């Protein structure tokens, strides 16, 4: 792919300070701060209605903020004009269903004043090379998602912004997109992706910003988030749950009884020691299942606690 427009090197690919957006009486963004360091994959997380899509629309200049400052690749964002070097999609990517995938890309290339030279390469890169002549109306949602990514890559972006990029993709597609995003970051590009799945962000991102009700409730590197996360929760079933519970209390392991077994909350080393102790006491472990990753629990704690 040909390079995007020549822009100065920047420390932060995105910087938003106190970004506010209201739709009538509804506050979509209530002073959001966001920093995406250049050369990283950053996750924008939050439950439905947290303000993720509104923030992404503002980044693209599709929506005008009521207050706050926003720069993309070092340049202030002007409403009605997509910043140079930025590409991606907001909501699910949409195309003209009566045109082929390739024709749609040719149209978008023309709108970017680019030739068609890169189209084959991006189609190959997103795995649509054999289906580009089909009308988009015949595409599955996963194929449209791939076409959306192809349309973004066609712009040769320095910052790729993707709204729920793995929606509708099969596991192989999710793996491919993960690899592609990491390649892009390794080449010096930056990626901002929104998601409401913590596991997806944990797998793909270097850093995350978590929104709740239009406010930033956490921002930092994934490692920092992991360190702050509570102990993992597991469901334990043994041959003698009463004895297992008693032993947990003696060892200071957090255990509560449930209908289907014991809910155990412990860090990995403590859990391993507890399970070994159970075995040495003649209590067999019939099942030990993780019921929620530490990061997911932190995500829920951050996004569900009362405002």
């Amino acid at each position, binding site marked *: 792919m040909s390079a995007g427009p020549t822009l100065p090197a920047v420390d932060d690919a995105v910087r938003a300070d106190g970004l506010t957006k209201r739709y009538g009486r509804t506050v979509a963004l209530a002073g959001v701060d966001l920093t995406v360091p250049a050369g990283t994959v950053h996750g924008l997380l939050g439950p439905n209605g947290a303000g993720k*899509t509104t923030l992404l*629309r503002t980044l693209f200049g599709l929506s005008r903020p009521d207050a706050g400052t926003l720069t993309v690749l070092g340049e202030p964002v002007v409403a009605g004009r*997509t910043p140079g070097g930025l590409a*991606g999609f907001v909501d699910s990517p*949409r195309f003209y269903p009566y045109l082929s995938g390739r024709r749609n890309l040719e*149209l*978008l290339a023309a*709108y970017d*004043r680019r030739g068609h030279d890169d189209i084959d390469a991006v189609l190959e890169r997103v795995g649509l090379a054999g289906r580009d002549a089909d009308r988009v109306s015949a595409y599955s949602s996963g194929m449209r998602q791939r076409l959306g990514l192809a349309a973004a890559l066609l712009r040769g972006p320095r910052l790729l912004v993707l709204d729920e990029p793995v929606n509708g993709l099969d596991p192989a597609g999710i793996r491919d997109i993960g690899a592609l995003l990491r390649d892009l970051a390794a080449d010096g590009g930056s990626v901002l992706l929104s998601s409401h799945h913590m596991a997806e962000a944990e797998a793909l991102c270097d850093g995350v910003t978590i929104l709740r009700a239009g406010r930033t409730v956490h921002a930092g590197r994934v490692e920092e988030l992991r360190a702050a996360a509570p102990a993992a929760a597991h469901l334990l079933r043994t041959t003698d749950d009463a004895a297992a519970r008693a032993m947990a209390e003696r060892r200071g392991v957090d255990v509560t009884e449930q209908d289907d077994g014991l809910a155990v909350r412990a860090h990995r080393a403590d859990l391993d020691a507890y399970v070994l102790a159970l075995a040495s006491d003649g209590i067999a472990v019939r099942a030990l299942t993780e019921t929620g990753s530490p990061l997911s629990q932190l995500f829920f704690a951050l996004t569900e606690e009362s405002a």
Partner: protein
Amino acid sequence: MRVLTAYRWELEKLTAQVRVRAAAAACVLAPFVFVAVLRIQDTVPSDTLFGRWVHVSGFAAPMVVLVFTTQWALPLLISLVAGDILAAEDRYGTWPTLLTRSLTRGTVYAGKVLAALTYAVVLVVLLGLASLTAGVTVLGHDPLVGLSGTLFSPGTSAGLVLSAWASVLPPALGFAALGVLFSAATRNGPAGILGPTVLGLLMQVYSFVDGPRAVRSALLTTGFEAWHGLFAAHPYRGPMVTAAAVSAVWVAVCLAAGYLLLRRREITGD
């Protein structure tokens, strides 16, 4: 150059759509069907201008088609594209796809407007040429009797018919601009298509009312009758000039309002 890029792709998008191609095909075929029916009928549409002469001269047929189509069909056919040209992006959800590229909203809008106006011109040209060809080939090319009883030679008749059809181009462009405005305001294809058509019918109804002449002159539909002066014994072109000026104002106002609506709009994906 950028406007031309947007214009070219809007034309490509239009020609790829079945309903647009079907409308263009109907403009070519319908006059032949209409003229064939006139030929096999014993009666003539004598309550329509030139209707009584359709069995006498093939040049009367395109004039009857002109009168019929300008009553409601032409605004509807024009609005099929103009009334949907912006709303289609809402229907397909493609505004963010288009507006996150390098072209500005103004450029995208200009490309769409040019495409809608082009379609309106093509429609009028197709209808005019097809109805003239159908009239002459099916009903013959005998001289045409004008509105004040003057007999026009076949050559003069052909020129007058084409001039009459050309004279409806300005109000046709006015309806295209009105369609674009409805499309921008309603963001809904059916509303964008039916809005100008209904407004056109209301204008027609007003023309039957004994209202102020200035208001009547300011109506787009009045321009559809400006060609009458061409077929008088002493031709006059004043109404055509007025119609062109009125249509230009309609075009300018509607397109400016449509642009302001698009420029101020928040693209929310709703």
